[in-house]
């Protein structure tokens, strides 16, 4: 039985959530119904062959009737093309790809999303709430400015989950980095065992991993790299694994598409 699919998906909804921030909803039943939080899809982001390569996106949300959402900021020609799509347009989509977040660990769970790294966290939060396990769940979000995050905050609060947020410019929430919210938020809880799930820019992930190491919290990070195939064939999406830092001469390469995108933070060479 197939686990991955290549489909011509129809755009069924498009939303602009902030300046340059867009959310697209596709009908992609086979992919949506198998998708797990943390997995990604590869989209053709051109009508012809330029830009050439597919673009990877975390799965933002799925619905029972077989739709799938991505969330993105316009940063280049590929995302510009995606933002120009209209409802009814067709897009070539491959997925679901990669591994997923570990949701079953005991203890509290804290979801941290920075910038567009918030995308998989909505899917993950929903999944955890729907599992009906009596777990303590916190969400910490970071953005450059209020306009980038205000709509997304609503989506999380609709789930009834506790959300704290930070902005770089102080226009909303804590003025500073989202990582500065971690210790105050988690240490005041009676829960002593924490599982941190995070996605965002590399410096943020590194900082989260460092805090978790210090506090002995479990930490999972969703990594991002340039990618060509997304299915383990091109071997282009390499990152360095932790063993290489212990022995600088060795090369413990990991591949984000197949070994990840979610890794235990202790397995990564920061």
């Amino acid at each position: 039985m197939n686990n991955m699919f290549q489909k011509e998906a129809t755009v069924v909804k498009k939303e602009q959530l902030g300046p340059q921030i867009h959310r697209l909803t596709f009908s992609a039943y086979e992919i949506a119904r198998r998708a797990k939080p943390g997995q990604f899809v590869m989209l053709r982001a051109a009508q012809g062959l330029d830009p050439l390569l597919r673009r990877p996106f975390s799965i933002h949300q799925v619905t029972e009737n077989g739709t799938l959402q991505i969330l993105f900021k316009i940063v280049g020609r590929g995302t510009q093309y995606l933002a120009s799509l209209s409802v009814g347009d067709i897009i070539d989509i491959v997925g679901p790809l990669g591994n997923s977040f570990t949701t079953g660990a005991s203890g509290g769970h804290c979801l941290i999303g920075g910038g567009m790294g918030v995308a998989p966290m909505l899917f993950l939060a929903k999944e955890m709430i729907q599992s009906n396990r009596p777990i303590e769940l916190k969400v910490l979000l970071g953005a450059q400015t209020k306009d980038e995050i205000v709509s997304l905050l609503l989506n999380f609060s609709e789930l009834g989950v506790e959300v704290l947020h930070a902005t770089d410019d102080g226009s909303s929430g804590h003025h500073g980095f989202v990582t500065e919210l971690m210790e105050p938020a988690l240490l005041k809880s009676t829960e002593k065992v924490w599982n941190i799930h995070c996605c965002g820019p590399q410096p943020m992930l590194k900082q989260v991993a460092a805090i978790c190491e210090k506090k002995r919290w479990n930490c999972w990070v969703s990594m991002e790299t340039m990618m060509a195939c997304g299915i383990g064939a091109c071997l282009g999406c390499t990152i360095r694994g932790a063993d290489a830092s212990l022995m600088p001469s060795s090369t413990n390469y990991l591949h984000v598409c197949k070994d990840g995108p979610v890794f235990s933070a202790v397995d990564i060479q920061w």
Partner: protein
Amino acid sequence: MNRMLQTKIGSLKLPNPVMTASGTFGYGKEYEDFVNIHRLGAIIVKGISLNPRPGNPPPRIVETACGMLNAIGLQNVGVARFLEEKLPYLRNMNCRVIVNILGDSVEEYCSIVERLSDKEGIHAIELNISCPNVKKGGVAFGTNSSTANELVSRVRKKTTLPLIVKLSPNVTDVTEMARAVEDGGADAVSLINTLTGMAVDIYKKAPVLANIVGGLSGPAIKPVALRMVWQVADAVAIPVIGIGGICKWQDAVEFILAGACAIQVGTANFVNPKTCDEIINGIEEYLASNNYGSIREIIGLAKKE
């Protein structure tokens, strides 16, 4: 399968001329959810060395205009693990398997060939003498015609399997290289491997790839590849396999009309995993709608008055 697509590379009969280029299709299994892999003309697996290789440090790839640069650095599982872990799957799938091999020395190439030659399920060998992404070996054999001739002659003595030699475009005269490997006993040549290139990050003010240089592939290189296939088809009597930026059936037909008896699809596999399937169908329809009974009738047809 329709017989009109049958083609031959030396003694190797293929049901159709569409193959997957080495390094773009893993060891086949990676694509099983997307492609009927037994339907492909052949699968050319990721280049195999005697011992496993870790490959180059990241970043390894970058997108360019209508193409991409890669400096994977021949990361592979090595010949022993290939035989143990990868080949049985392909044998079960009834695929025609061409093993791409590479080495740092003539001896290394020879000992890989010795270990592959008597194994069931291997249909041909493609010698990679043209990878631009490793410091020694590989391309060293691919840019000097007497070294290439010597390598092919020595490998030739080790196997009766059809021997394809993959040529580098990063030479002054590709026909000289083609003649040298034909003279050494190659059954076919495949071309082109990637063109050496680079990209610079203007904000970091540094090369994008950790390896500094990488191999350019994708539709951007097709005209260069086509020109070289045209020249080599005139220069040698052995079959020529066309590679370089083939993304759709029309591209494949161009290469065949220019003298290629088969083609390989590379980077396009990343963009559209169904490319090979679509090309097989497209060539078949092209032949039928133009009243050709066999692909052999159109090989090199653009050369004839």
